[in-house]
C-alpha cells in the first residue's frame, strides 16, 4: 500500500509537470501579447520593451519555463501581471468557495443521480424507466447558463426562497449546487442504472432472494454496495469536469470561485493567473482520481492496490 501511494504520487507529480509544460507552451505561442495588455494603448515601444524585460518575457522559452518551475518549487506562483497581487493569495481567497460548491454539487449529483438510477433499474423497461432515462439525457445536454438562470428566476426572483446570487450563507449555496447537481445527475443515474442491472442479474442476488430476504434488504445490503463501485470512480473524473464547467455557474450566481478568476485572466492574457488556476485544477483532478482509487478497496475487498 505505501509503495502504491508513493508510485501514484510520483505519477501525479509527473502529470502536473506535463500540464504545466503544455500550458506554458500554449500561452507562449498564443498570438496575443501580455505586455501590450499591461502597457496600455498609449505606451511607446520603449515602455513596452522595458516592461517585457522586467517580466523576463524577452528571454528564450526554456529560460522562462525554467524560471517559472524554479519559483514554483519554492511555492511562488508569481504575481498577476495586471492586478500585481500574488497569484497564491488570489487562489487562496477563491479556492474555498470553489471547493465548497464542488462538495455540495457532488452531494446533489449523487443524491439525485443515484436515487433516479436505482428507481430506473428497479422499473427497468417500464414507462417510468423510459421517462427517467429521457430526463437524464436532457439534464446532461442542457446548457448550464439556461438551467442556472431558470432556477434563479423561479426560486430566487419569483418565489423569493433563496437570495439572487451571492456567497456567504447556506441559502446562497443551494441554487448553484442544485444547478450543478441537476446537470451532472444524468451521468450518475445512467451509470447507477446499468451497474444495478448487472448486479441484479448476479447469482448471489438470486441466492439472497432464494433464502427469503425481503426486497428492501436485498437492495440495501447486497445490490447497492456492489453497484456503487463505478460511481466512485466516476466522482474522481467528475472533479475534472467541475473545474471546466464551474465557470458559468459561478458567474451566474456571483459565486467567488476560481472559475471567475480564470475567465478574467484569460481575457487579459494574465499568464501567472492562468498558470496558477490550471495547476490547481490539474492538482484537484489528480487528487480526486487518487482518492477514488484509494477508497475503492475499502468498499470492495476484492480490489487490491498493487
Amino acid at each position, binding site marked *: 500500500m505505501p509503495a502504491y501511494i508513493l508510485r501514484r504520487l510520483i505519477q501525479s507529480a509527473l502529470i502536473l509537470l506535463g500540464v504545466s509544460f503544455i500550458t506554458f507552451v500554449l500561452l507562449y505561442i*498564443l*498570438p*496575443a*501579447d*501580455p505586455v*501590450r*495588455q*499591461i*502597457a*496600455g*494603448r*498609449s*505606451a*511607446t*515601444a*520603449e*515602455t*513596452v520593451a*522595458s*516592461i517585457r524585460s*522586467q517580466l523576463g518575457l524577452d528571454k528564450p522559452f526554456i529560460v522562462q519555463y525554467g524560471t517559472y518551475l524554479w519559483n514554483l518549487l519554492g511555492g511562488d506562483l508569481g*504575481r498577476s501581471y*495586471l*492586478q*500585481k*497581487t500574488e497569484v497564491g*493569495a*488570489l487562489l487562496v*481567497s*477563491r479556492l474555498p*468557495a470553489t471547493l465548497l460548491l464542488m462538495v455540495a454539487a457532488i452531494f446533489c449529483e449523487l443524491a439525485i443521480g443515484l436515487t433516479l438510477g436505482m428507481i430506473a433499474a428497479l422499473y427497468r423497461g417500464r414507462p417510468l424507466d423510459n421517462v427517467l432515462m429521457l430526463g437524464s439525457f436532457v439534464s446532461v445536454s442542457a446548457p448550464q447558463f439556461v438551467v442556472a*438562470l431558470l432556477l*434563479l*428566476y423561479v426560486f*430566487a*426572483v419569483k418565489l423569493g426562497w433563496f437570495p*439572487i*446570487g*451571492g*456567497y456567504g450563507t447556506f441559502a446562497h449555496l443551494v441554487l448553484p449546487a442544485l444547478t450543478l447537481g441537476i446537470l451532472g445527475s444524468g451521468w450518475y443515474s445512467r451509470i447507477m442504472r446499468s451497474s444495478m442491472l448487472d448486479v441484479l442479474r448476479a447469482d448471489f442476488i438470486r441466492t439472497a432472494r432464494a433464502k427469503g430476504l425481503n426486497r428492501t434488504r436485498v437492495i440495501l445490503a447486497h445490490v447497492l454496495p456492489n453497484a456503487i463501485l463505478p460511481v466512485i470512480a466516476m466522482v474522481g473524473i467528475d472533479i475534472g469536469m467541475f473545474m471546466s464547467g464551474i465557470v458559468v455557474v*459561478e*458567474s*451566474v*450566481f*456571483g*459565486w*467567488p*470561485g476560481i472559475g*471567475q*478568476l480564470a475567465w*478574467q485572466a*484569460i*481575457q*487579459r*492574457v494574465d499568464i501567472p493567473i492562468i498558470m496558477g488556476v490550471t495547476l490547481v485544477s490539474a492538482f484537484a483532478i489528480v487528487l480526486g482520481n487518487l482518492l477514488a482509487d484509494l477508497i475503492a478497496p475499502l468498499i470492495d475487498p476484492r480490489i487490491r492496490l498493487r
Partner: protein
Amino acid sequence: MKKLLLSTALAALMAVPAFAQSDEPKLGGNMIVTYKDDVATLDPAIGYDWQNWSMIKSVFDGLMDYEPGTTVLRPGLAESHTLSDDGLTYTFNLRQGVKFHNGRAMTANDVVYSLNRVVNPATQSPGQGFFSMIEGFDAAAAGEADGLSGVTAPDANTVVIKLSRPDATFLHIMALNFSFVVPKEVVEAEGADFGKKPVGTGAFKLTEWSLGQRLTFEKNPDYWISGVPYLDSFTVEVGQEPIVALLRAQNGEVDIPGDGIPPAKFVEVMNDPEQAALVVEGGQLHTGYVTMNVTAAPFDKVEVRRAVNMAINKDRIVQVINGRAVPATQPLPPTMPGYTKDYAGYAYDPEAAKKLLADAGFADGFETELFVMNTDPNPRIAQAIQQDLKAIGINAAIKSLAQANVIEAGGTGTAPMIWSGGMAWIADFPDPANFYGPILGCGGAVEGGWNWAKYCNEELDAKAAEADSIVDPARSDERLKMWSDIYMAVMEDAPWAPVFNEQRFTMKSARLGGDDALFVDPVSIPVNYDYVFIKE
C-alpha cells in the same frame, strides 16, 4: 506670468452644460453597485479599466479635477495655478490642510513623488506615455534618471512643472488618474500590494476588499471639499452577471448595475415605462470604427477606403444594437470639443461605392478579412458590415477572436480590417488631441501600436503638434478649429470608417438622487460616486 482664472478661461472647452443640482442632497446611506469582473487594482498609476477608473477618482485626487457631470476642468488639490508667458512652466499652489486617509498632511513632495513614480519604468504604468511633455521625461522613463527633472517642489505648498514643449492638454493630464497623488511611505511599505490597500486624499476610503466578492468604500470625514461626499458609503459587489444584476436591481437589491442593461433585455426594459424612467441616457466620448490597413493592398488605395465608408449602412447597424448609439460621421464623438457639427460624413451609397471600387481597379471586388472581438454584440455588428461590403463586391471573412488576439493582429498590422467594438476608443480625457496621437498619428503606426490602420500623415502630425502648442485659453477656439480641420483631413484620407458613437444608458434605483448628468458623467463611468445621494 499671467494668472489664469480657471472657471472662465476653460469655459470655452465646455462640451456639456454645467452641472446643476436638481434635488437638495441628503446625507447618509449606502449605495450598492455591481460588476461582473473583479476590480483589478485601485493603484492610480496602474488602474486603466473603465470599471476602476471612477473608484480611483473617489479614493484619490489630482492637482486638477472636473466639474461633476461635465468635461469642464476645475481646481483639485491645486487651489490655483499660473503659466509662464512662454507656455512652458506651470506653478501650482496647493490647497492647505489636505490629509491622506492615514492622517498625514499632503505636501508638494507627495505630488513630485507621485509624478516620478508613474513615469518610473519599474512602476509599469500604462499611463507613462501621457507625461511625455514634461521636461526630463525621456531620461526618467528610460530609468536613466531618478525622476523628472522638470518637476520640483520649491516649498511644501508649491509644485513647479516645466514642460519641454507647450501642450494645451497638460491640465487635462493633471486631472487624469495617472497623475493622482499617493503617499510615499504607504506605497513603499505596501509595494505591489498598494493597489489592493490604497491610501489617498479622496472623498472615500477603502475599508474592505474581499477578493472576488465586494469592496466597501466609506466616507472620508476629513475630505477637503466640505459637505462632500453625500453617501456614508458605497459597496461594489463583483462577480455578478449583468443579467443577474438587472434582476437584483429590479428586486430593489442593487442601486446601479455597473455593466449596464444587458443587450438581450434592453428593449424589454425600455418598453416598460416604470423601468425606463430609471434609465439615464447620455453621450459618451466613444467612437466605434472600422480600420483599414493603408499600408497593404487593396486598402492602400484611398478610393477603396472611401468606398467602404459609403458601403456601410450605419443606421441599420445602430438598429442591430437596439438604438444604443448614434451614427458617426467622423472620428470625434459629438460631445467632444472640436467635433465638426456641419460635416455629414460619407453618405450611405452602395452604387457610388461600387463605382469608386471600379475606378480603383476592383470592378469585381476582392477578398479580405474583418477582425472582430468575440463578445456580443460585436460579431453581429461585423456580420452587418460583412453584408454591406458584400453588396459592393467585397467578400470579407469574419475573424472573431478574443480581445487580446485582435489587439495583437491590429498592432502587428496583419489585420486588413478591424471592427473596433469592445476595444474602441473611449477618450482618456475630454480633448480632441486624445483621439489622434495613438490611434491616427504616426507615433501609433508602429509595430504593436494602436493605430491599426497604420495611417501616418506627417503633415497632419505637424499640424497636431502646432495645435497642441496653443496654450493661451483665449485662442482655444482657434485650436479647436485646427483639430476640426485635422479630423476632416483624416476623413478625406479615410483610414477609418467611423460607424457609431455609443450612448450610455445607466440604470439607477428610484431612491438615488443627484443630477442626471452624474449618472452619465463623461469622466466618471458609470457614476460620480462623490456627488450622488440617497433620497429617503
